[in-house]
C-alpha cells in the first residue's frame, strides 16, 4: 500500500508537470528540469516494482527521490529568497525565483514538488523498513 501511494504521487506529479509545461505552456526553468528528471522515472521504476512485486525497486528509486528532494528544497529556498539565485543562472526557461511559478495562484510549484518528494521519500522509507521486519 505505501508503495502504491508513492507510485501514485509520482504519477500525479508527472502528469501535473506535463500539464503545466505542455498544455499551459509554462517553460520549465533549469531547476524544474532537474526535478522532472528525478520524478518521471519514478513512475516506471515504482510501477514495475508494484506489478512485479519487486521490493528492490524501492532501493533503485531512493537515490532519485533523494536527488529530487534536495533540488526541490534548494528551489524552494531560492523561491522564498532565502538563497540567492546568483549561483544558478537560469537560462531561457525563465528565472527559478520567478513569482509566476504558482499553481492556482498561490501554491508555488517548487513547494508542490518538495511536498511530493517528501511524501514519496517517507512512504518508500516506511515500506523499506516494513519489508526488513517481515
Amino acid at each position, binding site marked *: 500500500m505505501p508503495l*502504491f501511494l508513492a507510485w501514485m504521487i509520482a504519477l500525479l506529479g508527472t*502528469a501535473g508537470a506535463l500539464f503545466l509545461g505542455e498544455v499551459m*505552456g509554462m517553460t520549465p526553468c533549469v531547476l524544474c528540469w532537474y526535478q522532472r528528471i528525478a520524478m518521471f522515472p519514478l513512475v516506471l521504476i515504482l*510501477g514495475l516494482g*508494484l*506489478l512485479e512485486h519487486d521490493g528492490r525497486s524501492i532501493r533503485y528509486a531512493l537515490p532519485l527521490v533523494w536527488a529530487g528532494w534536495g533540488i526541490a528544497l534548494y528551489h524552494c529556498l531560492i523561491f522564498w529568497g532565502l538563497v540567492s539565485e546568483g549561483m544558478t543562472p537560469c537560462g531561457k526557461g525563465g528565472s527559478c525565483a520567478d513569482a509566476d511559478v504558482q499553481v492556482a495562484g498561490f501554491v508555488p510549484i517548487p513547494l508542490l514538488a518538495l511536498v511530493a518528494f517528501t511524501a514519496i521519500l517517507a512512504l518508500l522509507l516506511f515500506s523499506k523498513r516494513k519489508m526488513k521486519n517481515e
Partner: protein
Amino acid sequence: MNKKWIVISTVAAVVVAFIAGTMVFRDRSTAEVTQAAQSNTEALVRAHSPVYGNVDAKVTIVEFFDPACETCRDFYPIVKRMVNSSFGQVRLVVRYAPLHKGSDTAIKILEAARKQDKYWEAVEKAFAYQPQWAAHGNPQPELIWEAIKDIKLDMAKAKADAGSPEIEQVLQRDIADMMALKVDKTPGFFVNGRPLEVFGDEELKQLVQEEVRRAYPK
C-alpha cells in the same frame, strides 16, 4: 492479479483526467484570446502597419511576427502565396512581436527599409540570412545591414531612420497591442479579428477560406 488492474486503472484515470483538463484549458484560453481580440479590435490593425496585397481586400490576415522567429520565416511564403492567389480578396497586415533578443533592432532596420519602399525586399533578405544573424544566445541583428546591401537603399538615411523616435513609436505601439491581444507566441494570426485557435498552416488556410466565403458570397 488484482494489483495489476489497480495500477492500470489508476494510469487510465490519470490519462483521462489529463486529456479532459487539456480540453477544458484549451477552451478557456481560446475564449480568453477571442475575448481579447473582440474587446480590442482597434489594436489589431493600425494605420502605421505594413500591408501586403490589395489594401481594400475585405479579408485581413493580421500576423504578429518576429523577424528572428524560425516559424515566421517558414510561414512567410505560405502567407504570401495565400494573398497572391486570392485575386485581391485577402491582404496581410504585419504587426511586430519582438519576443527574441535583438528582434527590436531587426524590426527597426526593416522599418527603415520601408521608408524607402524596400520593405518586402528587406524582409526577404532578413529571413534568408536569419540563421546567421538570429543565432539563439548570440543574436547579431546588425548583420541585417550586410544582408540588405543589394537592395539599393540609401544606407546613411536608413541608419538614421532606424534610430528615429518615429520607428521606436511604431515598435512600442505594436508591443502594447501584442500584450493587449495576449499574443505570446509568434507567428500570431488573426483573420478578420478571429484568432487562429489551433496553430498550423492548414488551419490558417481554412480560417482564411471561411472568411473569404463570408466576405465574398457567391
